[in-house]
């Protein structure tokens, strides 16, 4: 267990294999409360795999992950506890298409937190207001634009009042004109003091709100540091090369 009381996520020597493929090769990371961490790197570098081990959508095979003092193991109660404390936003939104926006948001509060329907709906309405689409509550996800769907997905994750928010490439599946509306919501969230782990290539977002950045390549953390250090003075060749590629786009 970590000695640092401030750390809400502690990963120690995390390894993950897919068959013979070694996807994560000993990841160490400490995330403090209210910290915004951006993870970036080329595709296949293990960044999505890593963020998904934190709420155990992927199972790590070696090492230790502790989230808010709860160690992730095969114990189902621990996993459920951690999932209640962490919200996740996916690249493909993954809204439930058979439920309305409102039903999507209140589902977990009602069934997992056992809140009464009225309370859950009240909170859902506040959240929809916060992400800027209060008028869409009764629509189905299929009737919304990609940007609106992703904002609903953020509201759905926030409805459980999580301590940590995980974002797995939240803007990669969006048309360019919709990226901004989602990033604006995420910037607001970061400023409100939410602990956030964000896998993204949106360097503007990283520059604006990230406290620390981690560069992943081939299943390892190649370099980490504050955004100023990473952007102005990257130490590793691979970081330099990758940054020059994505910033020139």
């Amino acid at each position: 267990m970590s000695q640092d009381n401030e750390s809400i996520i502690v990963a120690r020597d995390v390894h993950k294999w897919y068959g013979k493929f070694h996807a994560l090769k000993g990841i160490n990371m400490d995330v403090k409360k209210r910290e915004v961490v951006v993870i970036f790197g080329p595709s296949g570098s293990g960044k999505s795999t890593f963020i998904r081990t934190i709420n155990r959508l992927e199972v790590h095979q070696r090492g230790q992950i502790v989230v808010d003092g709860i160690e992730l193991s095969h114990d189902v109660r621990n996993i459920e506890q951690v999932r209640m404390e962490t919200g996740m936003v996916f690249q493909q939104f993954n809204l439930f298409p058979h439920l309305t926006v409102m039903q999507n948001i209140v589902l977990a509060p009602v069934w997992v937190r056992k809140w009464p329907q009225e309370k859950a709906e009240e909170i859902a309405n506040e959240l929809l207001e916060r992400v800027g689409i209060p008028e869409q509550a009764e629509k189905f996800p299929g009737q919304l634009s990609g940007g609106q769907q992703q904002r609903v997905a953020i509201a759905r994750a926030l409805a459980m009042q999580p301590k940590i928010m995980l974002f797995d490439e939240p803007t990669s599946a969006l048309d360019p004109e919709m990226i901004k509306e989602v990033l604006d919501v995420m910037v607001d969230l970061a400023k409100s003091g939410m602990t956030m782990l964000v896998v993204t290539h949106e360097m503007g977002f990283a520059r604006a709100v990230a406290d620390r950045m981690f560069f992943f390549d081939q299943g390892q953390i190649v370099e980490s540091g504050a955004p100023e250090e990473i952007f102005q003075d990257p130490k590793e060749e691979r970081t330099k090369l990758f940054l020059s590629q994505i910033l020139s786009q």
Partner: protein
Amino acid sequence: MIVKPNTQSPPDPPGPVAWLIKNLFSNWFNSLLTLISLSIIYFAAASVLSWVFTTADWRPVVGAPLLYLIGQYPRDQMWRPGLSLWLIMFLIGMSWGVWEKYVKAFAIFLAILLGIFAIVPLETATITLGVRAAFLINPVLIYLGYLIGKNKIVNGQHVITLWIFVSSLIVLVLLPGFEGIPFLPKVETTVWGGLLVTLLLAVGGIVLSFPIGVLLALGRRSSLPVVKIFSILFIEVIRGVPLITILFMFSIILALFLPAESRIDRVLRALIGMTVFSAAYMAENVRGGLQSIPPGQIEAARAIGLNNFQTMVLIVLPQALRAVIPSIVGQFISLFKDTTLVVIVGINDLLGIGKSILGSDPEFVRLQAEMYIFIALIFWVFSYFMSQASLKLEKTLGVGVR
């Protein structure tokens, strides 16, 4: 501003003559085709109609209406199926009020049919004035139920509960009765027959095979080896065997192995056979639906904290079942038609009654066509309403699907 271009196609010239010229007689070849088709339709329709109204002899069909409905159910206990019919019609009326879109056509059809049946002049002694009056109450009950459902006195949940309660009451208490109770004497299922048995087998088979099929489909994807192997074995063995064989198995062979005092009722055995058969196919249909759910849905459900059971019931199954409504309804319809196979294990369903009426009079032997057309018509009507309801269901549930 961009000026909106006029993208509308020019309107068709109005009038039926213009329509005829445009669609049927636009050139000499189309005109020829139209004339040939018209003559074929004319001769086909003329010969069918003249057969129906002159050549055909409908005596075996109209001669014994009660036999078609309830078989040999004792005539002095007629009030029991009669009361059952009332109750069911009342419930159909309520269903019409609550789920107007799906049940309306069927309910109106039944009301009209039963009304006609009550007043049509059939020359048969079994249909007394009392029976006619009793039948005439059915449309009234349908309408009464409709008003109750329409005015929100009951909601869908109430109606479903009522359906389960009332149909169990009818099938387990009212129709079979009990030994030694004077006003509700036991009526063996050996004398049940006709539409009563056909519907009992079909509805019972559908209602029972659906949940079993869903469980088998889930079992087949289970990570527990015992559950998985059992499900696969069950599905593959049953699917590899014809329904007739299964009915024989349950009706005859099973009875040989079980001790005499634990004999299961004959109709019940057939029902179990139909259910088992249908469940195996249902499982494969549902499995197809389960496979169509993207893994992201399950991940999202897990990520917001739902447990496995909640994920299945709230997220996966609603989407999976919706995706396979057409094949599930197809399965129901074919189960409904397959009930006719119980004739071979000696149960007098609708088809069995038809056959026994044909055999009851030497004059009827040559009237098979009339009989089978009549029975086919009954099956068609039920199947048609089922498939119509399924189409509407698909359309409604289609909202919100990407």
